[in-house]
């Protein structure tokens, strides 16, 4: 009898340990998603700022300036549900610059700045997408769903622009 109680006790404590382990693992993953999104978001803001800087250059072609400024502001002010589309539009606006050889800024250093930010953005996208995938995979586990280990944390999502932003 005693032996049975002891084994039940051991089993229960092991199970509780496993639950806390999984919960703290999840918590860490959610935190990682927040961090990776924050750095991606900051970089995207920087990109919008560069767009506005380019638009304000004296040599800039006025039509391009309007398109750039417009899409940069939309991207900055977009709600989370509109963000994907807005960032995509900004990418396209940058695309016109290069396509039509309209880049007005031989000596301003903005072209280099843009290239550098874009490079960082693609790394940040990779990092963010990875943390989202890892979190989602954990959230799908039965033990997590059954014991509501994720609490009230929202399920992280990847946005389509993360595939095509650059």
């Amino acid at each position, binding site marked *: 009898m005693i032996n049975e109680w002891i084994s039940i006790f051991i089993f229960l404590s092991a199970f509780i340990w496993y639950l806390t382990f999984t919960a703290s693992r999840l918590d860490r993953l959610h935190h990682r998603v927040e961090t990776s999104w*924050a750095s991606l978001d900051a970089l995207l803001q920087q990109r919008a700022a560069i767009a506005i800087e380019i638009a304000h250059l004296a040599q800039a072609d006025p039509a391009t300036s309007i398109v750039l400024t417009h899409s940069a502001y939309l991207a900055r002010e977009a709600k989370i549900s509109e963000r994907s589309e807005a960032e995509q539009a900004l990418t396209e606006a940058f695309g016109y610059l290069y396509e039509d050889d309209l880049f007005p800024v031989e000596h301003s250093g903005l072209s280099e700045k843009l290239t550098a930010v874009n*490079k960082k953005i693609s790394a940040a996208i990779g990092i963010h997408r*990875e943390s989202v*995938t*890892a979190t989602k995979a954990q959230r799908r586990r039965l033990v997590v769903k059954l014991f509501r280990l994720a609490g009230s944390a929202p399920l992280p999502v990847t946005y389509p622009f993360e595939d095509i932003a650059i």
Partner: protein
Amino acid sequence: MRIGIVSPYGWDSPGGVQVHIRDLARYLIAQGHFVSVLAPVYDENSPVEDFVVPAGKPISIPYNGAVARVLFGPVAASRVRQWITSGNFDLLHIHEPAIPSLGLLACSIAEGAMVGTFHVSAPRIKIAFAIAPFVEPIVEKLNARIAVSEVARETLQIHLETDAVVIPNGINLKSFAGAAPRLEWQLGKTIGFIGRFDEKRKGLSLLLEALPEIVKVHPDIRVLVAGPGDQDDFIKDVDPALAGRITFLGKLNEEEKRQFFKSIELYIAPNTGGESFGIILAEAMATGVAILASDIDAFRSVLEDGKWGALFANSSAQDLAIKANQLLASQSTLDQMAAASPEGGARFDWSVVAEDILDIYEMVREEGQPVTLAADSRIWNRMMKGLGGN
């Protein structure tokens, strides 16, 4: 920034990972960062750089088809704990966190801003799947993962179901510039091979298979073979008519390696597979030499699909001979390729590679907290102390 770097392998044993960490640490220190490298050290009396903290004596275990000098166990774990607590690091950069050594320990013990670099490619699939459940919750703590090549990245995607940013290994471009050829190695039309030649996947036998076809077109061709291996054992299977054209140089030091590349007309890398990155091609490019390499994934990406050197169909002696004959037929083509290749090597200079790594550091650090012992590891410490007190 206070940066802690963890090396999984013995600091005083040779290896690409250690060289990579050493160069990176030096670059970061030159940029004004504080760097401390925790590494196993085999010989306690061997002189180490002052940024290295010895963690104990590594043991040799067979791992992934080679002997790895690694370090783990409770003593090593407490060294890691000590190093993390006293280091006050803003960020940890852990190399090979999935290999049973200091990297894995540090990754499981620490908490905060962490970056991991994966060097190894394609460990045996069954074993990798078997250890994944242990490794996954630990490696998951890394804020960002770096793979040194596309091949290493694929290994990660397949075995650990996780993705990584690719940042290649670095070289010191400056140290390769201005190398001089060695007269005794410049004997007419010379092609060169470098690597452990008795290893099949390095492909020397493929080159020798192609050699008769090359000799037909270029009767004065000579072959320089550099790298460690048993040459007597190798040469006895080679046609004596060809053997006379081959000179074995043995293992070269860094300086000799540069002279080697400068002395030959065409460098051939006939590797048939198993390469994760191909730093040797980056080094050849940096020195300035015409290159012909097999079209395995690792080499294609280093040579940017043939932009910085010619490619032949992997494992095809016939294609190797055809491409080599084409290149050797025109001295001006060889000269042009040699003159252009340092620009391709510049992509791997530390000034580029380390800045990419620093970008990742900045991204990870922005929101991440400084490095401390993980919460569960702190509780463990307290419990152990509590038990000891009773």
